[in-house]
């Protein structure tokens, strides 16, 4: 039995045990866990798309923050959450494009480029933020007919808002695209050995531009999900480090969309459970400590996976034609 199957078996047994104790609570905890996990998983997809082509994107946090802001305030001004969503996705794509310009065209240090994105998003959102605005409604949950009636799996997997289903579709599509399409093969080649990819006729610069821009749009989906579906509001510093946690999940999931999704689900579930333990007053931990749990877990996860995973080889290096 591989280690991964061991994890699955452990989670499945634990779930079955909790479900046998109290079915409704367990279902709702898992559904909450899935809702927590989705923005992390989507944000991790941003990282995967960029890093597979050799661009380090630590600006995910800023992309999510600014697009959540745009999603919320445009929805609030136009009284239409669809328009808010579209504007947010456009914003995210623009932020991806800005990162691509900095990293590809200007050959800037990519870590610093990403930090600029983050600080810019923080500055813009805190300057333009206005208190007391509301949106007409959040994206309402859809119950998938028949499937949502399955015990346990129904409420956990098939009663969610439209952005959740769309997000899951994107994660699965990205998995297929990276490993089973020529675009994916080219992207991976560019991320591992750009000069060889260039020799084989792949435009390194163009592919990096396209992927980082699309990744920005996915980051915007994660941000919009937070402000338009999960929470329905916006505050300063709204994303609370999710973009960075996502990077850790990406590394833990070995730059594989399904791996990152699994890591995100585990993470979301852990958070949902710790919330539930607080509600049930099983344990009495100060709220400050439950709040820092995700950050501690991020560090632990990275420390465990460090040295055992290998990032794309050309990551973080600007490409110049004719350089080996």
């Amino acid at each position, binding site marked *: 039995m591989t280690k991964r199957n061991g994890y699955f078996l452990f989670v499945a047994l634990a779930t079955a045990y909790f479900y046998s104790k109290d079915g409704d609570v367990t279902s709702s905890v898992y559904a909450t866990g899935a809702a927590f996990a989705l923005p992390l998983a989507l944000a991790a997809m941003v990282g995967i798309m960029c890093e597979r082509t050799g661009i380090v994107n630590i600006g995910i946090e800023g992309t999510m923050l600014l697009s959540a802001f745009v999603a919320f305030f445009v929805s609030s001004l136009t009284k239409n959450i669809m328009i808010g969503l579209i504007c947010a996705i456009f914003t995210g794509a623009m932020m991806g494009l800005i990162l691509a310009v*900095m990293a590809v065209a200007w050959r800037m240090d990519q*870590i610093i480029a990403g930090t600029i994105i983050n600080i810019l998003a923080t500055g813009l959102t805190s*300057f333009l933020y206005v208190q007391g605005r509301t949106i007409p409604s959040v994206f309402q949950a859809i119950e998938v007919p028949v499937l949502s009636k399955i015990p346990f799996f129904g409420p956990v997997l098939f009663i969610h808002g439209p952005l959740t289903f769309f997000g899951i579709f994107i994660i699965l599509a990205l998995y297929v695209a990276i490993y089973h399409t020529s675009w994916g093969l080219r992207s991976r080649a560019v991320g591992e050995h750009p000069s060889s990819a260039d020799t084989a006729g792949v435009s390194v610069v163009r592919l990096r531009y396209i992927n980082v821009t699309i990744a920005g749009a996915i980051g915007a989906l994660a941000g919009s999900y937070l402000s338009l579906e999960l929470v329905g509001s916006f505050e300063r510093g709204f994303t609370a480090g999710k973009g960075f946690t996502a990077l850790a999940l990406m590394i833990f999931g070995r730059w594989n969309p399904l791996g990152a999704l699994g890591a995100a689900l585990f993470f979301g579930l852990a958070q949902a459970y710790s919330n539930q333990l607080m509600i049930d007053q099983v344990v009495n931990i100060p709220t400050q400590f439950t709040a*820092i749990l995700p*950050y*501690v877990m991020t560090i632990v996860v*990275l*420390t465990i996976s460090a040295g055992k995973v290998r990032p794309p*080889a050309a*990551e973080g290096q600007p490409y110049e034609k004719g350089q080996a």
Partner: protein
Amino acid sequence: MSQIKAAPKEISRPPKSFDVGSWLVPIIAVLVAMTLAAILIKLQGSNPITAYKSLFKTAFGSAAGIGATLGKSTPLVLSGLAVAVGLRAGLFNIGAQGQLLSGALAAAWAGVSFHGLPGFIHIPIALIIGAFFGSIVAGISGYLKAYRGVHEVITTIMLNSIVMGVADYLASHPLREPDQFLTRTSEIQPSAKMPVYAHLPLGFFIAVALAAVIWWILGRTTSGFRIETVGRNRHAAWYAGISVKRTVISAMLASGAIAGLGGAVETLGITYRYAPAFNLGLGFDGITIALLGRVHPLGIIPGAILIGGMRAGAANMQFDSGVAPELVDLLMALILLLVTAPLITRFFKGNSNKAMTSGWGN
């Protein structure tokens, strides 16, 4: 080696002397950023000229204003210095915020709980305790970077949130001011309060002196040479027999100690106690200041004074012109973008002085 490493990144020397170009770029960046922000202020329906006038008049227009500006600048000089020391070693310490917070809280604890000490002993002890705790927080990231290969950007950011949570807990339970509704520590003993000479805060001079010392260490000593070599090319440093791991850890410890000192100075000189609402953003400002000052220990001082001045004048500006004080955050972001992006640099100089960090893998 199992994997092929690409050629090391372009190695550029930081400026040894202040030539015209390295001065001009930050100044133009500041002016362009203010112009861009003025457009946004105009779009919000306020008058940018009134806003800027009020901002700078409050900050630099009177002796008291300059004193307040230097007080605001002190932690910024130190957090900028902390980020700069890290960058010189190729480490991007985004955790100056958390290190600064732990220094601020530790200094508040030392300031409150030591009784009967004269000021010239109490103040240094509290400062050292603050620096020590800042250094421990950064040391965790340094250790994980050196021995586990975990990227310092992630660990420092995570530690920012962790420190904030723990400090919040400590200030609201064990260290809370007795019989107080607000979450904050008691006020520090009078012996721990740093003196102010004719509006000029003592802390500012400590910060400037430390910047000069760091400048000397980096440029003139063996340990400085090790840090610079590791920062420019860690493979070459390793080949030359420098212990990269030890250098990474000691650079992080130094960086964290400086940031922690920044928090301690803020507590002992300005706030006189710790509360979760204090010290916000000081560490992040350090990133902008370090890059604005071209990662030069002395170059960060003017940037810190400029931003400290804007922070000092922001509240009055809101009163006079209705522009939100968060304008300063926006200005800093724009300045950072303009200073680091080679837009202006390319226009004035052939090459840019890039700060370099490292990827996940190494």
